[in-house]
């Protein structure tokens, strides 16, 4: 099992389902989703750079080996997918329960 396969199965798949369920809502708030992903990357990259291979590590058999900012490319992909997934869930829940000011 590779990290990319996990991201594809458990990240991209539910994200695609949520986007298909409410495409107009997602498009209307695409700015919020883009901004949250950028902020997550800005906060997480320094945090991750300080901790990777010290506090936590990934087995070489599950990552492809390509690194950016000394981080496995899968980890950066995780931040993007996680931000979009959780952000989209927040939009869907807010829409579902009609909590607008």
């Amino acid at each position, binding site marked *: 099992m590779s990290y990319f396969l996990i991201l594809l199965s458990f990240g991209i798949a539910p994200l695609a389902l949520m986007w298909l369920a409410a495409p107009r809502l997602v498009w209307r*708030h695409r700015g919020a989703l*883009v901004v949250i992903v950028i902020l997550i990357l800005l906060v997480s990259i320094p945090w991750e750079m300080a901790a990777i291979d010290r506090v936590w590590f990934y*087995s070489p058999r599950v990552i492809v080996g390509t690194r950016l900012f000394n981080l496995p490319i899968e980890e950066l992909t995780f931040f993007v997918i996680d931000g979009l997934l959780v*952000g989209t869930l*927040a939009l869907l829940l807010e829409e579902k329960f009609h909590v607008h000011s």
Partner: protein
Amino acid sequence: MFTPEFLLRFTYLVMEAYIIGGVTVVLWLAHFRFLWERRWIILLGTLLVSAYALPLDAVAVANSWGGFNSAYISGIYFFGDSLLLEEIIFWIGTASVTISAVLIFAELERRGVPRWVLPVGVFLPIEWLAEQTAPDVQHSPDFLRRIT
């Protein structure tokens, strides 16, 4: 007791307290009323994300896809030594922070605030930002109720 080796074991927890805790405090200080009105959405979303991600996290550790350096972690595990306390805090903390921030950004978008301004919505009040950047957009009933 408080040897350097012992204190190092709180490294991951301290990182979480500083980063996730710090952002949480800033968000709630700037948007307490807004977030309080949406507390059930934040709680539900956080529970859903945690229920989805924590088992995956535990499976990854159990299968040695990744792991932790015992020198920098509390060593408190749950569910068969696979789910680290710090990882539970990570998922709960990051989910609640992400959901809170997206709800704020979405509200700013609804009020016509330009997208490039959204990041400062983390620490600046929604009403003030909307007033400054999109005064022509109709105010929310909630805002009008409070100023009249």
